[in-house]
C-alpha cells in the first residue's frame, strides 16, 4: 500500500470518526439493553441492527455521494491519483471504516449470546449470518454509490438494501434447517448455514470487484 493510499484512507477515518464512534456507541448501547428480558432483547437488538445499517448507509452517502454533491470530489481528483486509484482507495477506505463498528458490534452480539444464560447458543449461526448479510449489504450500497451520480438511483439502492435486511430475517430465519435449531442449547453448523454464508461471501466479492471493472474504467471522472 503506497503512501498516497494510506493518507487517503486515513482521511476517510478522520472525516468519519464521529460517525464511527457514534454508531459503535449506539450499537453497544443496544447490546447492553438486549442483555436482560425478552422485551429489552427485542428493543436492544433493533437498536443494534439499526446502528449497523444506518452507519453503512451514511458512510456510503457521506463518503461518496456527498463528496460528489458538495464538489469535494474535484479536490480529491486534483490529487496525484487516477480514477482507478480513487475507486480502489474509496473501496478500501470506506470498507475499513465500516469494519470497525461492524466487527466490534458483531463480536459484541456473539459475546452476548455466549455469556447470557437466558439466550440460547443456537442463535449463534443465525446471528453470524445476519452480521455477514449486513456486511454484504453494505458492500452493495458502496458499489451503488461508486457507480451512480443519481440521487434517485441511490435512494432506490438504499431502500432495496434496507428492505433486504427485513426480508433476510424473515426468509432466512424461516428456513427449517436453520429455524429448527434457533432455540438449541448448542449452535448447529449445518449445510444451510454454509450455503447462506457462501451466498453472502459471493455477494460481497461481486459488489467489491464490480467497481474495479466498471467505475474505475469510466472515461470521465466528473
Amino acid at each position: 500500500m503506497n503512501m498516497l493510499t494510506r493518507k487517503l484512507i486515513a482521511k476517510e477515518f478522520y472525516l468519519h470518526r464521529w460517525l464511527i464512534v457514534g454508531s459503535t456507541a449506539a450499537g453497544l448501547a443496544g447490546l447492553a439493553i438486549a442483555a436482560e428480558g425478552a422485551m429489552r432483547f427485542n428493543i436492544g437488538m433493533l437498536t443494534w441492527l439499526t446502528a449497523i445499517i444506518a452507519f453503512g448507509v451514511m458512510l456510503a452517502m457521506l463518503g461518496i455521494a456527498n463528496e460528489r454533491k458538495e464538489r469535494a470530489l474535484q479536490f480529491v481528483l486534483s490529487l496525484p491519483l487516477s480514477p482507478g486509484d480513487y475507486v480502489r482507495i474509496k473501496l478500501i477506505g470506506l470498507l475499513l471504516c465500516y469494519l470497525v463498528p461492524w466487527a466490534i458490534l458483531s463480536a459484541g452480539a456473539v459475546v452476548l449470546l455466549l455469556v447470557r444464560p437466558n439466550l440460547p447458543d443456537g442463535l449463534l449461526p443465525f446471528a453470524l449470518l445476519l452480521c455477514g448479510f449486513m456486511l454484504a449489504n453494505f458492500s452493495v450500497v458502496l458499489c451503488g454509490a461508486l457507480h451512480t451520480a443519481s440521487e434517485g438511483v441511490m435512494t432506490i439502492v438504499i431502500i432495496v438494501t434496507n428492505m433486504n435486511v427485513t426480508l433476510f430475517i424473515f426468509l432466512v430465519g424461516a428456513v427449517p434447517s436453520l429455524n429448527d435449531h434457533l432455540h438449541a442449547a448448542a449452535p448447529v453448523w449445518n449445510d444451510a448455514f454454509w450455503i447462506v454464508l457462501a451466498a453472502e461471501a459471493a455477494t460481497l466479492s461481486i459488489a467489491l470487484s464490480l467497481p474495479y471493472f466498471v467505475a474505475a474504467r469510466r472515461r470521465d471522472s466528473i
Partner: protein
Amino acid sequence: MTTTKHIEMRNVRKAFRFFTLEDLSLDLEPGQIMGFVGPNGAGKSTSIRLMTGLLTPDAGEVRVLGHAMPDAQAIAKRDIGFVSDDMRLFGHASVGWHMRFVASLYPGWDPQYAKALVKRFNLRIEQNVSGLSSGEHVKTVLMLALARRPRLLILDEPTSGLDPVARHEVLTELMDVLRDEDRSILFSSHNTVDVERISDRITFIDRGRLVDSNDKEDFLERWRRIQLQVPAGTTLPDLPHLVSRVADGQFVTLTTNRFSKDLVAFLGSSVREVHRMSLEEIFVANVMHHREARGE
C-alpha cells in the same frame, strides 16, 4: 534544445449531448501565463477537465508536462496545481488539517510559503472550512495549490467569487509565482480585466471552438477601431482584415484585426479617430466576427 511544453492539445474533440468541443489545439510554454477567455458555456471548463485528466477526449491528443492525459494523470498531477471555482474542500475539517493533508502528499510542499500565504490571505488555520466565506474558501484552495510549488497551475475561473480586494491579492500572488521562469499558469476567466492584467498570452474560445490565440501585446497592437467621416451615400472600397463595419449616417466605424499605418494612409482624410481596443472589446469583436463567419 527543445523544452517540453507544459500543455499541448492537438485536434481535441469532446462531445456531450448538447455541447461539443471541436478540434481544439493549443500550447502553453514553460513560464507563460495563458488567459483562457470565453463566454459562459464556451468550453473552458471542459478543456480544463481534459487537461487535468477528469475527462477523456473522443479524439485528439492531450499532453500535460509531457505526459499523455488522461492515462498518465497520476504522474502529471504531481506537478499540477488545479483550482476551480466550483472545487470545495472538506467542510468538517479545518484549514490546518487540509494543509497537513496536502503537505503529506506533496514532497515539494513549502511550509514557510504556506505560512506566508495564510497570513497574506488572512486565513485562520484552526477554522473549519464550512465556516469560510466563499472568498476565503477560494483563497484556501489557492493557498493549498500554490504552497506545493507546482510547475503548472491550472486555474478555472478562480477569481469569479472574489471581491475586488481579494481578486487583487490573488492576482498579485499569481504574478509572484511567475518569477520562477519554469512555472506556467493557465488561467480561465470571462473577466477580461483580470486576464489582461496577468496574462502574456491569450486564447479565446467560443461555442466549443478556438477563436484566436496569440500574445497579449500582439492582440492589443493589431486590433483597432477606426472612425471615419464620409459623405452620405459613399461606398467604401473592400478593405482587407476588417472584422466589422458599422455605419451611422456619415460616420462609419471600422474594426480591424491587422492594424497598420498603411491602412490609415489608405483611408486618408476621412479618418477621424483611431482607438486602441481593450481586451474585452477585442474579445467581443473577435467572438462576434467568428460567429458571423460560421453563419451562427
